[in-house]
């Protein structure tokens, strides 16, 4: 924890000392470095966590890879920086990372007072509660007087306070900064319930000692649009990050997958031709290679593939597409035309 604090201090020092030259353009800085530096969670199964071989896995991690594929044509030109909820925005503000893909909720104050810009949402989430089955609780409204384990520095902390106030209930928070330590406290019985975004609860449960002993209550108490974020004021970089995410969604809608993308190059559909850069134009407008969308789909996959691979039905998280289905399937995932 001391190193962590040191790290926040360093970020502050960067803001104090850093000369105002970073605005020259994140894209050219990234190109000069030769890799994209992406802030990720590091402890959240399904979104950002290294596997047993040390390889990074997760929805947010793959979003970062899509950006690297768009900028360099190589999804491997990327460095991941694991960040806690408390560190993440300072890291982005101070220029330690180029883009933040760390299940961060897009809110008004973060988009304004924090000096950030959020792009296309890569996961529509909502806050829920997980409780041990043996407590016999069916609804969050029965939680009056409960001890609640919660991460600091998140919208979660505020949402849960709001929810308990609205329903005239009392709570006792236990606030621990480290995700793993927090989950450990909950699973050892320190708290009656763990509150977080529903996807995170599923992630935490998937690595619990006895996953079947816990249930997630039906109430979703907030809207949590999780989106990548960049520094405010660099529109070109924001566009690239934004359309990297959108390209994965558009690819799914056009039926392009990492398996069939090479065949699709021969497609006669003008939308597909423009999307994959067979008919040039999009890449030049965005300031990246014409093949950027091809590279994203080829190396990372479309949104559906990324979703199923990391958090879908066959993974321990077993999340439904729900709000994250394409708009054509009743979800919210909708990309503007690529032309």
């Amino acid at each position, binding site marked *: *924890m*001391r190193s962590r*604090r040191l790290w*926040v*201090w360093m*970020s*502050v020092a960067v*803001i*104090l*000392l*850093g*000369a*105002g030259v970073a*605005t020259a353009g994140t894209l050219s800085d990234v190109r000069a470095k030769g890799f994209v530096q992406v802030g990720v969670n590091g402890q959240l199964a399904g979104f950002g966590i290294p596997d047993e071989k040390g390889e990074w896995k997760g929805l947010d991690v793959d979003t970062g890879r899509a950006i690297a594929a768009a900028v360099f044509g190589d999804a491997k030109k990327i460095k991941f920086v694991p960040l806690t*909820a*408390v560190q993440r*925005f*300072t890291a982005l*503000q101070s220029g330690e990372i180029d883009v933040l893909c760390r299940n961060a909720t897009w809110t008004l*104050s*973060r988009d*304004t*007072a*924090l*000096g950030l810009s959020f792009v296309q949402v890569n996961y529509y989430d909502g806050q829920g509660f997980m409780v041990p089955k043996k*407590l016999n609780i069916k609804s969050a409204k029965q*939680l*009056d*007087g*409960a*001890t609640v384990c919660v991460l*600091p*520095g*998140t919208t979660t*902390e*505020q949402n*849960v*306070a*709001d929810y*308990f*106030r609205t329903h005239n209930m009392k*709570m*006792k*928070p*236990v*606030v*621990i*900064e*480290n995700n793993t*330590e*927090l989950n*450990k*406290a909950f699973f*050892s*019985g*320190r708290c*009656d319930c763990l509150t977080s975004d529903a996807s995170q609860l599923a992630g935490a449960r998937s690595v619990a000692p006895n996953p079947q002993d816990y249930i997630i209550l039906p109430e979703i108490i907030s809207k949590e649009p999780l989106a990548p974020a960049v*520094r*405010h*004021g660099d529109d070109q970089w924001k566009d690239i990050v934004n359309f990297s995410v959108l390209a994965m969604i558009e690819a799914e809608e056009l039926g392009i997958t990492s398996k069939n993308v090479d065949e699709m190059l021969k497609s006669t559909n003008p939308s597909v031709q423009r999307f994959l850069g067979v008919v040039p134009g999009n890449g030049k407008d965005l300031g990246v290679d014409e093949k950027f969308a091809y590279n994203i789909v080829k190396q990372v996959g479309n949104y559906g593939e990324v979703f199923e691979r990391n958090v879908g039905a066959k993974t321990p998280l077993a999340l439904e597409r729900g709000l994250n289905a394409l708009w054509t399937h009743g979800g919210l995932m909708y990309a503007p035309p690529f032309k």
Partner: protein
Amino acid sequence: MHSDISSSPSGAPERVSSFWDDPAKRSLVYQLITLMVVGFIGYYLFSNTIKNLHRQSIATGFHFLGKEASFEIGESLIGYSAASSYARALCVGILNTLKVAFIGTALTLFLGTLIGVARLSTNWLVSRLAAVYIEIFQDVPVLLQLFFWYAVFNDSLPAPRQALHPIPGVFLSNRGLVFGVLAHNPVYVYMGGAFLTACAGVYCLRWWAGKRQDKTGKTFPLLRSGAGILLGLPLFVWLCGGAPIAMNVPHLAGFNFSGGVTVSPEFTALLLGLVLYTAAFVAEIVRSGIQAVSKGQKEAAMSLGLKPWQTLNLVILPQSLRIIIPPVTSQMLNLTKNSSLAVAIGFPDFVSVVNTTINQTGQAIEGVAMIMTVYLVFSLLTSAFMNWYNGKIALVER
């Protein structure tokens, strides 16, 4: 002629370099230059920060202090709810840090002295046990110790419904130690007043006994009479007030206990970790302080016929305290500063509250500045007090 020759070589350079030859003036110039450099660096940092913050459109200033905090805090010494302001939330954090620092310092001094004296014991077992304690707790990083104690509490203690119940009114579970306290009654306030009066009385008695001993050489059983006054007066008031014994006993209600007083596992783990760690250092300081007093002092005192406790109290301790106080001061400061490790195990200390505040308002500079200021003030106050005490007990040479 002769004098002319001798005076002109010495006189001429004197006029040129008279300013530089005066060390006081010269140092004044150096100080001015240093001040200007420091001032310039300060100005540069400040203006550059403001510019950078402005460029990144990050809000600045302390206006957020008056806004509603809208987050809950687990334990608080003053009334607090999510509807309170950020300023109040920060006060809760400061008080929690002070709570740990005060109780921690007191326990550390007690335990450290005990183990330091035990380390010097002629009893082989006692001395070795103290040595083992010191080596273990001094060598393991304090953060690991905190994690260890926290895990011990969480994993070994039962849930509230199966709470351990060693004596009536006391429950031990993974929600902490809950025990009954006396229900509020005005008599207790009067008892507090009686205790303060007793303290003043004992102080006067001690002064009188000292005078009398100086004059007549007769000693006065101060310890026994003092204890009698300190206990007797409040007890008398309590009896006069009708001897109220109504208790506020905790009982299981819903998820947790209500009523009584709760000592949370976070607080206990933090306190235990900090005290055990720092006490090991204090023990070594106490040992070295006592050993630093020459053996002859002890032998001389014994040969004067002083009893062992008198030897320790009147001869050894006054001399060793002078050696002990300054390093112990720095250990006390260490304990206060290390209490910020509380964020790791979820105790809502000042740093933890500021962390949440920074994240909700995005104002890291202001937050970090507040952390720095608060810890600086704590440390300066502690060190001012200890310096005063050190000056008081320092050897007065006649």
